[in-house]
């Protein structure tokens, strides 16, 4: 195979990988703090995308400002959901999972009624493409990669250096010990959930220019988030990056070398194997 094509496949893997990492961050965070698998993650991602659609494409607010606005809105939504719904079921794994499922259905249904059924795109905030040694990168992708890396760094610093961030981490590792040390579980759960939702919404907003938005983009997104989360390791940010890169590579190289659509089948089989052999994922803690 031509070296250029191979390089392109590698570039694709990295671009895709970071995109998937971005999508999976929120669900990983929520799972690590509250042990809740948030099925509604995909629909919150979708709502974030629609927020950008309205702020940026319809009301012509600056793209970066739109991102900030939508992040705030979605975080608020997350706070509301945690306070009024999830808090009642705290500690009950299965009911929380089912509740998130119900919310997923609800959001998709509401979105269909409110926003209509069509796939919609937004004007590209960063048009054009870049050619480096025969390998092509869409400008929009490069910017998104850049922004996601900044986001990852910010998140990492937050968790390591800031009090609230450390509290979240403590909760994730050992809730009882954390409480004994004075971490307010209520406040931290609420805060962590909001951040998780905000991340989901942000990833949706960042990706609208690269993909499109419709009420139905949530389902595939959350499934990919699961795969990343499992492969990389629940509760680990570097693990999420690794998981994302793995999935990105499978898709990128899988499409390149395998007939038809076997690439995704392989991704799923890998997940199954991973859980069987090493349930905490490649870099998960516990």
């Amino acid at each position, binding site marked *: *195979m*031509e070296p250029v*094509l191979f390089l*392109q*496949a590698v570039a*694709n893997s990295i*671009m*895709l990988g970071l*995109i998937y990492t971005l999508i999976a961050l929120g669900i990983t965070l929520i799972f690590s703090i509250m042990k809740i698998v948030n099925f509604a993650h995909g629909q919150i991602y979708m709502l974030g995308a629609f927020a950008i659609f309205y702020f940026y494409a319809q009301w012509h607010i600056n793209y970066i400002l739109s991102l900030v606005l939508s992040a705030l809105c979605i975080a608020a939504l997350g706070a509301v959901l945690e306070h009024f719904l999830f808090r009642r079921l705290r500690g009950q794994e299965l009911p929380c999972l089912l509740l998130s499922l119900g919310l997923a259905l609800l959001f998709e*249904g509401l979105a*269909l009624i409110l926003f*209509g*059924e*069509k*796939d*919609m*795109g*937004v*004007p*590209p905030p960063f*048009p054009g*493409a870049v*050619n480096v040694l025969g390998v*092509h*990168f*869409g400008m929009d992708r490069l910017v998104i990669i850049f922004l996601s890396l900044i986001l990852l760094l910010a998140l990492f610093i937050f968790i390591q250096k800031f009090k609230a961030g450390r509290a979240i981490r403590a909760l994730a590792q050992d809730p009882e010990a954390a409480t004994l040390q004075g971490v307010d579980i209520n406040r931290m759960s609420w805060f962590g959930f909001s951040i998780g939702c905000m991340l989901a919404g942000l990833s949706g907003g960042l990706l609208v220019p690269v*993909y*499109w938005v*419709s009420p*139905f*983009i949530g389902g*595939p*997104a959350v499934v990919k988030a699961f795969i990343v989360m499992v492969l990389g390791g629940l509760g680990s940010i570097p693990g999420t990056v690794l998981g994302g890169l793995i999935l990105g590579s499978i*898709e*990128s*190289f*899988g*499409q*390149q070398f395998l007939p*038809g*659509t076997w*690439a*995704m089948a392989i991704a799923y089989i890998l997940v199954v194997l991973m859980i069987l052999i090493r349930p905490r994922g490649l870099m998960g803690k516990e």
Partner: protein
Amino acid sequence: MVGPTYAQKVLKIGVLGPMTGPASLWGLAMQNCVEMWAEEVNAQGGLQVKGEKYKIETVTEDTKYDAARAVAGAEKLVNRDKVKFIIGTNGTHEALAVLPITTPAKVILCTFCFDRSAIGVQYPYSFRSIPTAYEFYTPMYKWLRQKYPDKKRLVLVVKNYAGGLVVRDQAKEATEKEGYQIAGVETYQPATTDFYPIMTKILAHKPEVMDFTAASGGDTGLLLKAAKQLGYKGITLQGTQGDPGTVISTAGKENAEGHFFMGGGSDEAIASPAMIAFIKEYSKRYGSWNEVASQDYYIPRLVGLAIQKAGTTEDTDAIAKALEATEIKSPLVKGNPTVKFAGKNYYGRNSQVIMPLALVQVISGQPKTVTVLEAKHLN
């Protein structure tokens, strides 16, 4: 007291299709067209059949693009609502699940699926409401060959669903007839969101023409974007109607430039004033225009005409026969070309609607009609 002093007779028309879910784009367009027609007819007192005026009532059932739901919907329409006419079924799996119910019940089914056998002689009450890629590809590739005689390397990009596979086969037939060399056929999974990997593979074949076959609006936009961003400079086209608005907004104006697709006729070059009015009315009622509606417009009218011609609302054998011979002059396209049923030589019966199809190209970010094609190979 003003108004009719007798209870007006009612003619029920069933509508069956995906009204929610990702495929609702097609189902809702179909439903809206039937509704608008019904209102138009009722505003004139009803459908005149042999001296009596019938009020049109529509009954809609949502299939969610699922075969089991389609069956439930059909059962309800046929056995509870007792309709004799169903406009609907958009997916092949929907249609083929429903035909065993509608055929013995002699219910006329106007499907939108692409499957060849669904309107064959074994389903004498079944008709296809819209043109498929088969009606489009033969004249289109002929035209393309003449316009760009040196571009012969072709890659087919196929979405892995029933409709996609049918269109792929139709594309193969048409392109081989015109002497194109098929350098590759690449299939992608319906849930694909990122097209960089598959586009990389496609470009490895060094195509001069890329046919997206039955890709949906959002997919087409992303395929175009990926193609252009990865350096492709050749021809792109598809064999179905893409929603041009979605394609252009998703791909971005520069990336969509030059793309060919089957048009619906809303382009001002060929649209008549009636079409403009129709688009306005549709957008007002339903929030935004859906290009698919420009083709869905005809089927309820054709059915209405056939009923009138046959002089009965009950005898579907007579109505089916009449429908095969029904034609109308399109008020939406300049020159009022004929829209009718044909296809006996290919489908076994005159059960395929044919209408002049605009070949549309994106020029300066706008869909422009380049030429009007006719499916002369069907008779």
